[in-house]
């Protein structure tokens, strides 16, 4: 046997003193051969692009038909500042928008809230009322672009604002395309932006799903996100398993709310991280598609083939960027972007090299965008579909991740499902343990970061930084005060009262929220009203 001969020979070879595991700690063998895929069936396990179980891709001809959407997440300062950046990006060939909101907006607080001090416009754009959204999208035709909004507890309000801005542009809601993140489960698990307790959050989410399936049918109502789980320190396997399990949890809630699975499942989309370990990432996306398709068919009895499709956005891993030797981040991001493309992503954000310092400058963002364009137009990797498919290693790693995910599903089920497991701190504990473990590996030099724990330099990096002036906060507050003065206070109070009544009862909240938005109720007023009815969430902190 040739293999035995080779195996004998390897015994005489010295191995480097290194740890041969993926970045998530999965052991990697020196060589993979057909033996690793003993009961592998091409038709059953892989199939064809656009065909069940979609391992090779969700569309029939993938990037031969259409490239992924290049979508750079951005937003800072006031709506006017961000509007300018959007126009810059569109001019340079970006094909979709992705809105980053500031912290007060993410938490449903107004810019004049005491908790917002120092945070207004810092990490994203500040939105208080419809007026800000009108400015944000002025001169950008909503019927020609798709917009992704990274927003969770106040997702319903921001979507409502978007719908009304569309109306004002003469674009009816049934042709609007885009995504709201609206994934509260991962917030409780990892990202920790919350207002209400899980049960109430799930109600808002199902209200959105129900409303959109009728009125905004092309909108992706939830972007089920592993990205933040990974950023919080999880392994690739945990990202895969927790994200998909969250996805199934939304499916179950939608069905429990009386929706037919095929009415909303096609509008669920996913959002993954692309981390350092190249093959592990590619395998992760492939495994995700297979798991989703199989369970949607077998367990949830979806009939519409579109319900089987796991479509996803990818962002390269922010947590892998280093402050040291920041130019290296360009290369890191490039490899990560390549993994996402080889994994069949539908849209992609590439991080800018300076993001460990502050929000990216225009120039840094342009390089990040060019990185994607380079992959698309120079490397040739887009010419054929799933070029890594059939690699013994990649297929085995795909299988391995899939098996691991099912094991996690079982554990979560034993705890009583996703929400119970959140209340018990299961995910939180798993993630912080992995984060700590990884940090220790870095410090023991079992894992490396160039410039941080290997090939270090003493020099201070010289890097241009985008500063958000303090004036942004005062300007934003002034604008808010002005709107509060000018709007019809009585109408606002009435609309909010209606919202409260709907929240106390079981009526769908979306039409009420849209009514509030129309009369320029502030985000803080709407979220505050719901908070009074729904209560606030407190995390079960556990290390």
């Amino acid at each position, binding site marked *: 046997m040739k293999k035995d001969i080779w195996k004998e020979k390897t015994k005489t070879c010295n191995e480097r003193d290194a740890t041969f595991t993926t970045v998530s700690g999965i052991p990697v063998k020196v060589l993979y051969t057909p033996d690793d895929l003993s009961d592998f069936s091409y038709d059953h396990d892989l199939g064809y692009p656009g065909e069940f179980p979609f391992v090779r891709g969700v569309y029939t001809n993938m990037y031969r038909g259409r490239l992924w959407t290049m979508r750079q997440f951005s937003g800072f300062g006031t709506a006017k500042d961000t509007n300018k950046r959007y126009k810059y990006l569109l001019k340079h060939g970006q094909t979709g928008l992705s809105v980053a909101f500031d912290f007060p907006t993410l938490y449903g607080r107004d810019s004049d809230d005491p908790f917002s001090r120092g945070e207004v416009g810092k990490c994203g754009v500040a939105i208080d009322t419809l007026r800000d959204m009108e400015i944000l999208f002025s001169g950008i035709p909503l019927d020609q672009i798709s917009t992704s909004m990274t927003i969770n507890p106040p997702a319903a309000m921001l979507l409502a604002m978007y719908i009304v801005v569309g109306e004002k542009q003469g674009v009816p809601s049934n042709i609007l395309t885009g995504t709201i993140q609206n994934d509260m489960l991962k917030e409780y698990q990892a990202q920790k932006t919350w207002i209400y307790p899980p049960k109430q959050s799930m109600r808002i989410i199902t209200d959105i799903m129900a409303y959109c399936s009728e009125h905004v049918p092309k909108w992706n109502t939830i972007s089920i996100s592993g990205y933040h789980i990974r950023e919080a320190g999880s392994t690739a396997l945990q990202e895969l398993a927790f994200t998909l399990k969250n996805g199934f949890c939304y499916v179950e809630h939608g069905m429990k709310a009386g929706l037919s699975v095929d009415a909303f499942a096609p509008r669920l989309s996913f959002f993954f991280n692309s981390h350092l370990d190249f093959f592990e990432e590619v395998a992760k996306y492939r495994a995700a598609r297979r798991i989703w398709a199989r369970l949607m068919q077998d367990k949830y009895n979806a009939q519409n083939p579109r319900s089987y499709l796991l479509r996803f956005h990818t962002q390269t891993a922010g947590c892998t960027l280093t402050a040291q030797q920041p130019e290296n981040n360009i290369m890191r991001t490039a490899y990560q972007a390549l993994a996402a493309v080889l994994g069949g992503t539908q849209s992609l954000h590439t991080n800018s090299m300076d993001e460990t310092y502050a929000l990216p400058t225009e120039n840094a963002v342009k390089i990040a965008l060019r990185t994607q364009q380079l992959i698309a137009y120079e490397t040739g990797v887009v010419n054929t579909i799933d070029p890594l498919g059939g690699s013994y290693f990649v297929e085995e790693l795909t299988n391995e991740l899939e098996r691991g995910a099912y094991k996690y599903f079982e554990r979560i089920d034993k705890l009583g499902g996703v929400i119970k497991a959140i209340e*018990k701190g299961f995910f939180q504990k798993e993630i912080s343990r992995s984060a700590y473990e990884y940090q220790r590996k870095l410090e023991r030099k079992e894992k490396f970061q160039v410039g941080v724990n290997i090939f270090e330099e003493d020099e201070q990096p010289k890097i241009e930084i985008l500063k958000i002036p303090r004036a942004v906060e005062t300007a934003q507050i002034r604008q808010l005060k002005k709107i509060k003065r000018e709007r019809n206070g009585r109408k606002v109070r009435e609309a909010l009262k209606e919202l409260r009544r709907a929240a106390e009862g079981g009526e769908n909240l979306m039409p009420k929220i849209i009514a509030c938005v129309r009369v320029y109720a502030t985000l803080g007023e709407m979220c505050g009203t719901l908070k009074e009815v729904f209560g606030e969430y*407190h995390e*079960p*902190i*556990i*290390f």
Partner: protein
Amino acid sequence: MRNRRCAVDKRLRQLIRGDKRVIAQTITTVENATDPKVLEQIFPHTGKAYHIGITGPPGAGKSTLVNVLCQHLLTDGKKIGIIAVDPTSPFSGGALLGDRVRMTDLSLHKDVYIRSMGSRGSLGGLAQKTKDVALVLDAAGMDYVFIETIGVGQVELDIAQVCDTTVVVLVPESGDSIQAMKAGLLEIADILVVNKGDREGSDRFMLELKFAFELREQVTGWDFPILKTIATKPEGIPELGAAIAAHRSYLEGCGMLEKARKIKLKRRIHELIENRISSHLREHMIGEHELDTMLDKMYRRKLNPFRVAARIADRIIRPQ
């Protein structure tokens, strides 16, 4: 020297007035036994606080319960001190103290002082340290001192014994191990609480507990209550407050409070004597060097530990 005395008096006055910074620093001193005089100085000012122990398995909702119970008690204008004890990592001696997170509503209240304690190594023992810290809070004019501990080991049971009223908090999930707990944890309970009453199985668990404890009241004379709470809602908190008050008047009514506190003082005396003697022994009677050479001989079986111990002990008990 006079100056120092002055400063000490001033500090004591600040402590008694309830200055939080001084309370905090005094606790540090006491915890680390850096100035043994401190406890002597504050002792005359103690004896007024009512001590309530809250114990139970991790995650039962003890901290959450303390948070809402205290808010309930604060409406009467009472002053409250809280000691939250978390287990220390056995490997490093460090600790992650997270109980405060549940008590953020209280943290800024002017009449509340919260202190987290890691259960430290053996010297002096955690239970004793906790008692010392409780004394500081007592002297600082607290009407109630709450001591939250995890009810698993002997140490925690010891701590419960400094308290006038001990509340044991269980959750519906504890149902499975009720037999095992009966021996230890439940023995010390004056009030039993089933928290997370919103969870499945809480009513059945309540019934089981009531059944298991039917006989107990006849033995002690105290009408042993079993209460259901939902700390997160909150629900059942006034009832818990009332049960604590009832236990207190029961103890006071039959003279048990004084009796129990005297027993505790007596035990304290014993402990202190033991501490003194054992640290004296360690320091003076058995020199490290002497012991090391003997260890070597014992290891090589030239000496036996029984003989060695007897010889050293005799030297102390019957000095020539």
